């Protein structure tokens, strides 16, 4: 065999990955081969691959179970690591870990986005001394991720398990896309849980994709297939620049989705009646541009990337249709991360406010709603990207603050004509202030008295009074919201501020 024939023979062998039976069992689960996944992910395949020959002296460990390299997504170079679950279930040996570290370090030096295609059983326990505890051990993967966080976008596509320590890869990514039925994350497997703590539970209940995307919030996006996961990742990355130094690229603008109802017709005058905030978002953004994050987790608050006039924007909107749009511990958590994500990569923020406040009661106090709410305020407050606050209907109590109220230096605070801004709503306020007086009145006079006091209260918090006091910057016709935002975002794009000088805040996490 000539030199070149030997090279070709070795390449062909390694390219095939692990044994046929593992390819077959993956196929039965709807799982694609790692190289097929990469073909679908990149515009035109992977351009550069390093350490293809890692561990090639061992025939059973082609590429040591992970593919690392660089290719283009939406025309932008992106670094990738992708587990090969046909090789020892995608487990990590010494060279697997070193390969992951090197591609992360390339992403750091070149300031390129880092994408993780995860499908791995975790550490190879037989190799633990070489891959677990040391300076170039698996811990370093997470150290690198933390260092990369906010420097370059980090995206995780979860196609299979991400077990034990490996579960921290998704945890340190900006966004985690999970394939329903195949993806899972857990520190201890159900088998381990039964042995160690006596709990009997299925894998799906313990760490399935649906659980993580609806209950724990460790997952962000639940998809049906690997192709859907890849399509989402491509779309998601289109809203981002390559790193924190640059701005997102604009694309050709589109008009808003045509609708039968105007924004003004969408919003019920009765402050307490629900409406669907998605309908308002549709009329505000370029048609088809909404890329929602954590759709199924804490749905009382909507977070997602979108485009207005072709430009990236991050939307945080209360959803009165779910739990009245009240803020809970999970919604505050969800908002805090999304706000940090947009701020890190120079994506302007738009707050659409219709919030009765933070939830009250023993349950949420015990969950630490004050601490979680503080986290949201903290993230929102220190943002330096353009920040626009729109009071759609009501903004009561700390809800006003959390949704970027006037005290938190939004570039503007706009309000619709029937907006109400107050410590609390008229019903609650009259109840709080007049309770004793009401109790003393004869039964039949009470209703009229309450009505009178509520009317007085409403007059006191009238939106034009707040406009007169310059609490809000403009009262606008709801049907002109999109045009208003286009004008303002184009001016605010020049914003260049530093929040404050310090090492970092002490966050209320």
């Amino acid at each position: 065999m000539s030199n070149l024939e030997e090279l070709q023979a070795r390449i062909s062998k390694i390219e095939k990955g692990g044994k046929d039976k593992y390819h077959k069992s993956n196929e039965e689960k709807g799982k694609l081969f790692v190289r097929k996944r990469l073909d679908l992910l990149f515009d035109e395949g992977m351009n550069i691959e390093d350490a293809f020959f890692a561990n090639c002296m061992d025939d059973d460990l082609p590429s040591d179970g992970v593919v690392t390299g660089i290719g283009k997504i939406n025309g932008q170079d992106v670094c990738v690591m992708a587990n090969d679950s046909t090789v020892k279930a995608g487990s990590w040996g010494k060279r697997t870990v070193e390969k992951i570290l090197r591609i992360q370090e390339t992403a750091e030096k070149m300031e390129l986005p880092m994408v993780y295609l995860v499908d791995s059983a975790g550490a190879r326990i037989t190799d633990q001394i070489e891959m677990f505890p040391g300076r170039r051990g698996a811990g370093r993967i997470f150290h690198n991720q933390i260092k990369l966080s906010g420097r370059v976008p980090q995206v995780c596509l979860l196609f299979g398990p991400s077990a034990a320590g490996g579960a921290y890869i998704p945890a340190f990514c900006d966004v985690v896309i999970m394939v329903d039925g195949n993806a899972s994350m857990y520190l201890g497997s159900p088998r381990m849980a039964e042995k160690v703590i006596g709990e009997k539970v299925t894998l799906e209940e313990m760490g399935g994709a649906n659980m993580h995307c609806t209950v724990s919030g460790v997952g962000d996006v639940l998809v049906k297939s690997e192709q859907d996961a890849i399509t989402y990742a491509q779309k998601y990355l289109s809203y981002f620049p390559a790193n924190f130094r640059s701005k997102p690229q604009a694309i050709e603008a589109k008009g808003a989705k045509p609708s039968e109802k105007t924004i003004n017709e969408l919003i019920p005058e009765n402050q307490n009646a629900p409406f669907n905030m998605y309908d308002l978002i549709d009329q505000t953004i370029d048609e088809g541009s909404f890329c929602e994050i954590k759709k199924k987790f804490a749905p009382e608050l909507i977070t997602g990337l979108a485009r207005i006039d072709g430009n990236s924007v991050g939307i945080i909107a209360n959803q009165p249709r779910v739990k009245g749009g009240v803020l809970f511990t999970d919604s505050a958590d969800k908002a805090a991360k999304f706000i940090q994500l947009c701020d890190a990569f120079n994506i302007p923020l738009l707050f659409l406010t219709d919030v009765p406040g933070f939830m009250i009661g023993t349950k949420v106090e015990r969950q630490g709603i004050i601490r979680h709410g503080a986290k949201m305020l903290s993230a929102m407050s220190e943002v330096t990207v353009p920040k626009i606050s729109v009071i759609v209907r009501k903004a009561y109590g700390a809800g006003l603050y959390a949704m970027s109220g006037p005290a938190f230096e939004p570039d503007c605070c706009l309000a619709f004509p029937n907006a109400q801004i107050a410590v609390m709503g008229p019903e609650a306020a009259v109840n709080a202030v007049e309770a004793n007086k009401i109790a003393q009145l004869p039964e039949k006079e009470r209703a009229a008295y309450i009505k009178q006091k509520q009317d007085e209260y409403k007059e006191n918090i009238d939106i034009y009074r707040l406009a007169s006091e310059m609490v809000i910057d403009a009262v606008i016709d709801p049907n002109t919201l999109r045009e208003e935002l286009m004008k303002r975002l184009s001016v605010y794009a020049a914003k260049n501020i530093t929040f404050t000088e310090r090492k970092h805040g002490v966050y209320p996490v």
Partner: protein
Amino acid sequence: MQEIKASMAGSVWKIVANVGDSVEEGQDIVILESMKMEIPIAAESAGTVNELKVAEGDFVNEGDVLAIVE
């Protein structure tokens, strides 16, 4: 069978379906009142209302079963 559960603590303001009604996915069964807001609680999939477990005015906690849809 699906259990229609309260999404948050509050009181039952209106019951908008009757036992025996067939309901569609997303159709409201009960409207709670909490934090001064109307909180509609809808069926997750189509079915027939088999049982209503609460009456108007009842206080319910998050997770309490309000109705059963078969």
